[in-house]
């Protein structure tokens, strides 16, 4: 049994070079005085995100209206992760070879995972910069939006060995949570059963909970061995492949395993999600044996689907966008892919009583039915199932907007003020803009043929906290017939004794606390205040409900709450979350997708980013 240390133990100080930038003018950031901006580079090796930013619009005023944070490379990665080489008897052959051959020799080139860990450059935060003090002028211009790097869903980025997660409840001596074990979640299922979506979503949720998790998609490794400009051997996905193709498949798998074991052995990883087809009972048994020999426990999650319409929708939305099908007619591509899958169907063996001693979760038709076997009252399996019950292949967007300005220049937490005139104007512009935007988007979808001409628009619901400013901001939606719900979990971060104080006063009154805060702005609590971490823990029910709801959700809340929710959806690292910025003149939209989520911004006309309304 592990000994658990009191929680939450702050992560080690990041740098002696960090300094607080005091902020002269608070009027624009009146309710955000707990954010101190730090300079200097990160001393912990934070792997840089992929530098490919080909479709990142830049931060000039013209291009900010529609802002996609998605990376081209990732779009390509949405290809067929599923058509992995683990078919037939390949798996067991592979394992016997693995035992005798030096693993590293089959590793022909560094994976993106490895590259990011091996980087010899001084590590930078995403997007190539670390937190900088905000120039005073930035508040007047719209250049002060997000650090561009956090516009990218980081769910595929590796974690540093000392990583602490947004909602991590406590740490243990070994740096792992809840129980002594290392766990490999092995995904099983035929292609186009939503395995990758499952692997990515679980990784997001488990990282959030504080379990150090990384997903290893076998399909990504195949693409490294066979780059887009090279032909995949014709028989790569065939059962009776040629000897050279079988060898290629085994090299792909070995490379994936190298990274997987490195994650456990050298990077303090706790849960690896191994995303591959894993089609045979014999192969799975060999895999369990091998992982157990490494001291790793196995939890299987099998995705089963017997509804052709779900499979076809999956193929259409994810698979045929793969480079393999560039230039194909859509219907022919779907047909071809379905034929390729059908070759595997007769070989595939579902998990049943012959594997009853294993811990497994079977997921039927994207969560319609869930079966748990041999997982009794385990924290992790229970958490996963709770999550899976609410997980859908989410279609609805999540919009984030700030509450309007209030009657107090620097609103005190304890006074819970009402909206002022400017705030009321804001709430009207917000409602009008979003409703109009959604109408146009819906029409565009019909225009593109994505929706039937008579399709109903997706429903919108609004969540607020129980604080007056958020409720009053939402009232304009209520007047327009949109359902609004108050949720106490969405209340802003409690400022404790710093309530109503400006940055300078805080620095003067609590110099030691400020020094601590700069070291760990995510976990540090000012006296009697909440930390971002506390906020993340209390918002977990909201996050699960957000995953379940199929309609679009607008969340109107304090910036501290928006930061944490955005951090979940975009897999931000804890040190990034406190520095996220949300302008007052825009709605941030998160568009969900299987491999990674995307960000878009909607500008509110007539509302300057951070000052008075010009109407």
């Amino acid at each position, binding site marked *: 049994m592990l*000994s*658990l240390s*009191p*929680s*939450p133990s702050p992560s080690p100080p990041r740098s002696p070079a960090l300094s607080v930038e005091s902020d002269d003018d608070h009027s624009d950031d009146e309710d955000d005085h707990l954010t101190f901006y730090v300079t200097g580079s990160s001393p912990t090796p934070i792997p840089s995100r992929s530098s490919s930013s080909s479709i990142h619009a830049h931060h000039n005023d013209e291009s900010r209206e529609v802002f996609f944070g998605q990376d081209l490379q990732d779009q390509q990665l949405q290809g067929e992760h599923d058509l992995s080489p683990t078919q037939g008897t390949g798996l067991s052959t592979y394992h016997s070879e693995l035992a005798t051959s030096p693993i590293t020799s089959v590793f022909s080139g560094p994976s993106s995972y490895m590259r990011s860990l091996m980087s010899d450059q001084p590590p930078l935060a995403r997007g190539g910069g670390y937190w900088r003090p905000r120039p005073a002028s930035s508040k007047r211009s719209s250049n002060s939006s997000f650090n561009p790097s956090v516009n990218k869903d980081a769910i595929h980025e590796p974690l540093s060995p000392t990583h602490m997660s947004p909602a991590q*409840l*406590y740490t243990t001596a070994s740096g792992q949570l809840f129980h002594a074990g290392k766990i490999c979640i092995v995904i099983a299922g035929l292609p186009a059963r939503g395995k990758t979506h499952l692997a990515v979503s679980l990784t997001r949720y488990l990282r959030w909970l504080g379990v150090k998790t990384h997903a290893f998609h076998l399909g990504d490794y195949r693409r490294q061995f066979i780059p887009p400009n090279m032909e995949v051997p014709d028989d790569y996905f065939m059962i009776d492949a040629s000897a050279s193709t079988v060898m290629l498949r085994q090299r792909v798998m070995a490379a994936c395993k190298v990274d997987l074991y490195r994650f456990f052995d050298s990077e303090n990883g706790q849960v690896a999600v191994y995303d591959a087809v894993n089609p045979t009972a014999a192969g799975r048994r060999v895999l369990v044996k091998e992982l157990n020999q490494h001291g790793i426990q196995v939890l299987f999650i099998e995705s089963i689907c017997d509804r052709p319409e779900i499979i076809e929708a999956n193929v259409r939305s994810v698979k045929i966008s793969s480079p393999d099908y560039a230039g194909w007619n859509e219907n022919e591509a779907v047909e071809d892919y379905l034929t390729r899958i059908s070759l595997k169907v007769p070989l595939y063996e579902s998990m049943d009583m012959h594997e009853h001693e294993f811990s497994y979760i079977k997921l039927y038709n994207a*969560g*319609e*039915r*869930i*079966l*748990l*076997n*041999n*997982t*009794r*009252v385990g*924290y992790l399996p*229970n958490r996963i*199932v*709770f999550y899976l*019950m*609410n997980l859908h292949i989410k279609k609805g967007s999540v919009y984030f907007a700030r509450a309007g300005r209030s009657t107090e220049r620097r609103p*005190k*937490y*304890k*006074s*819970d003020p009402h909206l002022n005139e400017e705030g009321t104007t804001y709430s009207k512009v917000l409602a009008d803009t979003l409703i109009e935007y959604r109408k146009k988007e819906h029409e565009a979808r019909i225009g593109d043929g994505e929706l039937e001409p008579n399709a109903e628009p997706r429903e919108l619901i609004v969540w607020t906290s*129980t604080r007056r400013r958020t*409720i009053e901001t939402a009232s304009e939606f209520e007047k327009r017939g949109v*359902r609004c*719900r*108050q*949720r*106490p*979990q969405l209340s802003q971060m*409690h400022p404790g004794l710093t*309530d109503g104080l400006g940055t300078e006063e805080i620095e003067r009154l609590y110099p030691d606390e400020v020094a601590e805060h700069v070291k760990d702005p995510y976990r540090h*609590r000012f*006296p*009697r205040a*909440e930390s971002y971490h*506390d906020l993340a*823990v*209390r918002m*977990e*029910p909201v996050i*699960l*409900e957000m995953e*379940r*709801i199929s309609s679009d959700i607008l969340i109107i809340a304090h910036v501290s709450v928006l930061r944490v929710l955005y951090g979940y959806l975009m897999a931000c690292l804890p040190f990034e979350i406190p520095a996220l910025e949300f302008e007052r003149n825009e709605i941030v939209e998160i568009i969900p997708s299987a491999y990674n989520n995307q960000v878009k911004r909607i500008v509110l006309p007539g509302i300057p980013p951070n000052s008075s309304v010009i109407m």
Partner: protein
Amino acid sequence: MGGYSFHADNLQICVVMVGLPARGKSLIAQKIVRYLKWLSVNAKCFNVGNYRRIETAHPTADFFDVTNSEGERLRRVAAEAAIADMLRWFDEEQGTVGILDATNTTRARRTWVEGICRQHDIETLFVESWCDDEDLIMQNIIDVKTTSPDYVGQDPEQSALDFRNRIRNYEKVYETIDDNDLTYVKLVNVGSQVIINRIQSYLESRIVYYLMNLHIKPRCIWLSRHGESQFNVEGKIGGDANLSPRGREYARQLPQLTRQSVGDRPLTVWTSTLKRTQQTAKYLPYRQLTWKALDELDAGQCDGLTYEEIEMKYPEDFHARDENKYEYRYPGGESYRDVVTRLEPIIMELERQENIMIVTHQAVLRCIYAYFMNVPQDRSPWMEVPLHTLIKLEPKAYGTEVTRIKADIPAVSTYREKGSSSLKK
């Protein structure tokens, strides 16, 4: 005031228990009701057996024989009466989750119940407890059933035998749930396998998650307030004060007091982030966890004041709080309802864990105690929980047993009666 709700507007759910007798159905039903009511979800259990007993107080096994048509008729009448009452409750009292506690072991019976609910726009969630482990079944019969009202005043051994025969009659017609259009959760042999089908709402997922975290291993929970603090001595509320000398004495005696009650059972101690609970727990030789969620109710603008000062400065607030202490939210602070919301993960984790000791604060302790002891919301904020007292809770099948162990260290009273601003002597 923003009420706390899990559920979308107008959602009503009927949880239909399914399973042979002695499968722990009533226990599960009661726990669901307690959990939901504690979270302010309007929930109520309708036990068909209680309706049947009105007509047939002490039936023999023959009554339950499927070939006994009179018995069959009476049981159907009882089920109809229970459902009629439940529908009335959904309608007149805006119920959210009604629990129909009966065997419901045939497909025909379940179709009938589901049909009635559908007519009334009520979602059904079937909860089946399936068990073929004879040892578990007999243990449940001996623990619970022979003390059932059906067997009052009868010989326990005879009762157990009769009960086993009653179950045989049900077994003849038992059909497990396999209709995949229904929303259901099936718990096989106390959770060694679980099947979850077509969960329709977040509230249903919450109920299922709760059921998955329940276990039947014997265990205890110990609760203690922090030792007397400097603020307690001065009659102030909230704050983050140090312990008083007498409070420190309680901290020193707590390990011995704990050991007398806990023995050598393994134990984990949970504290809040405030100094007074950590100082209280600091000599306890067990592993410790700190939870922000265990911090005291936030009194907002009234933090650090005495009750007299609050009455003087905020007379209206003071009386509003007495009117409805559960819902009253301190200006810029929290209500009891808010505290319950943030304690929910604590309760979930407590259900999953075994022996736990919690060192926390008056309001938080009242909320946790209210969960285990089923104390209604109009009473829970007024419960007297003295300082320097260790409370032992032992959850049993039909309720929780409480033992209070007083340390022999005097402390001020922090109990304020309704309508008064002075603390009880």
